[in-house]
């Protein structure tokens, strides 16, 4: 790493943007490739308008072992040579840049729409959502299966295009964008009164995760630190969110193979976890809990006791419910070997979260780039190597146990003090980067402020943005009837991707 080529920073910190060197394009690209080669991971790559003619390309590379974030920047005008052939993990970022700003990555192998924005002001001709040049396995004998946007269950909209020979899937391509609500675009000039609540709804099942990343950025930009007690409550909420979703996922996985006991019990236990969040803040999804500067609700001893006893109960319940799953050979035969992603694949496409940990990659923001309470309380990382549905389920189960222990520990040792600090004005010309390990994986928010201390560009990278491609790869050569199972084992967000 040549230090003159980039700026090194930490998770949850802000820095004056002019400290970041603007490199010539080739050096920028070499730098990105070099850093990825040295074990870095592209957490974000985006463009921000600089003037009418040119844009600034900014790359945020996570160095997980060192706990550092490298920021690289360059100027780009109409087009640039695509990095995708050399570094596949940027392929969606480049497509996004093309779609949002019209800067074309030349020789991009799959330059297709990402979100099909329909809004005026975007320099693209109107394109119908989901209608694109899908990969096609030629030949009249192949049939395509087109699933979505309206799925059979209560699921968000997305379009899945399978190239099938009978039951065998040769290729799956995923086309999203149906949930596009323009969150990123509308953040410019903010923060607005509704911004916090849009963050809560960026991915509604990850309200705490996204809002936390947002709050950390706002705090960093305004130079305020949330009090320790608030940090602890945030950690508690984040883990409760993880618990609820992981338990729900295990139940859903059981449901997908028609294994009723675990499916029903986990469904109910998930509700119990959601209700614990509601004990803290009145909302099952943690809406209204997090504020920039702290949290809106404190916990008293009575509530802590309630939570502790409920956690204990949930622990017993979930242990017995999930044990049934691992005891049932009919379930295991469905899980094992299904939807494999190798470690090499996972690293190549830059996957994150439990999905990558199931493929043998040690990576967890709570461990690698800890902020807030995670600097004080450790959560052991859960890593498995098979990369199949079974591993992804098992990683969740390990994380459930560790999060349960963490929450109980935390509640027993809650720091004293205030829970909310007033926020100051945002520093001008600063950039802040915030990573949070949401239950799906790394959430990356990058905030840039302009001269007036308003947000000039806000970039959100949901873990799903990295992982959808993994799901598509996992399906190659699989039976199409196993798709729902594979899909659930990833359980990715559509709205978090579409924003």
């Amino acid at each position, binding site marked *: 790493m040549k230090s003159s080529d980039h700026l090194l920073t930490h998770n949850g910190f802000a820095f004056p943007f002019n400290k970041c060197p603007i490199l010539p394009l080739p050096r920028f690209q070499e730098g990105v490739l070099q850093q990825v080669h040295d074990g870095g991971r592209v957490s974000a790559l985006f463009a921000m308008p600089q003037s009418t003619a040119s844009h600034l390309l900014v790359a945020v590379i996570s160095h997980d072992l060192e706990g550092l974030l490298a920021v690289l920047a360059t100027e780009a005008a109409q087009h640039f040579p695509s990095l995708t052939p050399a570094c596949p993990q940027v392929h969606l970022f480049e497509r996004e840049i093309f779609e949002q700003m019209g800067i074309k990555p030349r020789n991009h192998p799959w330059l297709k729409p990402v979100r099909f924005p329909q809004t005026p002001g975007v320099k693209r001709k109107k394109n119908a959502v989901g209608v694109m040049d899908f990969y096609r396995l030629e030949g009249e004998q192949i*049939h*395509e*299966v*087109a*699933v979505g946007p309206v*799925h*059979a*269950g209560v699921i968000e909209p997305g379009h899945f295009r399978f190239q*099938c020979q*009978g*039951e065998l899937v040769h290729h799956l391509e995923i086309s999203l964008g149906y949930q596009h609500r323009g969150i990123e675009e509308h953040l410019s000039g903010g923060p607005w009164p509704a911004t916090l609540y849009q963050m809560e709804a960026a991915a509604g099942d990850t309200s705490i995760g996204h809002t936390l990343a947002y709050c950390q950025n706002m705090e960093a930009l305004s130079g305020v630190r949330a009090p320790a007690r608030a940090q602890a409550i945030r950690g508690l909420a984040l883990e409760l969110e993880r618990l609820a979703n992981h338990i729900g996922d295990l139940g859903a996985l*059981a*449901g*997908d*193979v*028609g*294994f*009723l*006991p675990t499916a*029903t*019990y986990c469904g*109910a236990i998930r509700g119990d976890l959601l209700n614990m969040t509601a004990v803290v803040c009145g909302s099952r999804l943690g809406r209204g809990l997090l504020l920039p500067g702290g949290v809106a609700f404190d916990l008293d001893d009575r509530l802590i006791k309630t939570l502790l006893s409920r956690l204990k109960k949930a622990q017993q319940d979930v242990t017995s419910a999930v044990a049934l799953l691992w005891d*049932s050979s*009919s*379930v295991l*035969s*469905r899980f094992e070997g299904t939807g494999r992603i190798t470690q090499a694949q996972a690293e190549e496409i830059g996957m994150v979260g439990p999905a990558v940990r199931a493929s043998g990659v040690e990576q967890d923001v709570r461990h690698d780039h800890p902020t807030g309470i995670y600097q004080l309380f450790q959560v052991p990382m859960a890593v498995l190597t098979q990369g199949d549905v079974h591993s992804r389920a098992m990683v969740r189960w390990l994380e459930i146990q560790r999060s349960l222990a963490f929450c109980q520990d935390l509640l027993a040792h809650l720091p004293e003090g205030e829970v909310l600090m007033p926020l100051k004005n945002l520093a001008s010309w600063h950039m802040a980067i915030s990573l949070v390990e949401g239950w799906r994986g790394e959430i990356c928010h990058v905030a840039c402020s302009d001269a007036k201390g308003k947000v000039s560009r806000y970039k959100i990278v949901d873990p799903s943005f990295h992982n959808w491609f993994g799901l598509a790869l996992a399906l190659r050569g699989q*039976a*199409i*009837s*196993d*798709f*729902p199972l594979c899909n659930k084992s990833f359980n990715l967000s559509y709205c978090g991707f579409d924003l």
Partner: protein
Amino acid sequence: MKIGIPASLILYLFSLMAAPLVPGIINRVKARFGGRRGQPLLQPYYDLARLIRKGFVYSRTTTALIYWGPLLQLAALGTALTLLPLFPGVPPLLSMPGDYILLFYLLALGRLFTILAAMDTGSAFEGMGANREALFSALAEPALFIILATLVHRSGFLSLSQIFVESSAPLALPGAEVMILMAALYLILLSENARIPVDDPNTHLELTMIHEVMVLDHAGPDLAVIQYGVSLKLWLFMILLCQIVLSVLPNLGVLMPLLWLAALLIITISIGIVESTMARLQMRRVPQLLVAASALALVAYIVSR
């Protein structure tokens, strides 16, 4: 060829009425197992009553086959039930040597047109379901006929009514063999009626369903016909199984109706228990299950010689 007595007619009408109760009971069992209140016992009837009064929606791609399918299937099932002795000792409405061939070929006719109705929509989902249905039922067919051959072979009679009604000790199979035979028939029952471990009647995922996905485009009264047909088909297979069970039990005379109901109830509950405790098989494992059913039936046949 014999025409049945009023008792047969009453039983026939009773079957037509009672069939939707079976999925209702299965759901109650599953609810008990799952720890929930669950759907009302009569929910299948409520559903039928609602569907029959709803409007129609048809795809522009489809032809008349989309509603011919369900109608033919129901007519086939309605006819098939007249050939089946519904109660021990009471002959069916119609009977003749080889009636079981006609019975299962009528069902096959219904199946062909159900498949065509599904394929009529030109949707890959329905295609998938139709394909699975065609394959699995093709594999179930030999097993079913081996079971029938075993019955014929043991009893020496050529019609269902003779096998189950006229012979005094119908099968006279020793315990083990009849158990094997019932196991085979039970597997076929689960597979032909789209139950776990072959299909999951509760799943809502287009890509894994078999029966449900074939009727994705049927609405209103057409769907009512299909759902009623589904319960009739389940009833039909349960009666067949029940007859085999009762044929090895002693005749209890006046208590026979109770025994009959108990047997039906036990079969129903057992389906609910299987669904509450087992996971679904992977799609490519289902053929193995069906071949296993054939093998079981064959063992019963060979052992019974």
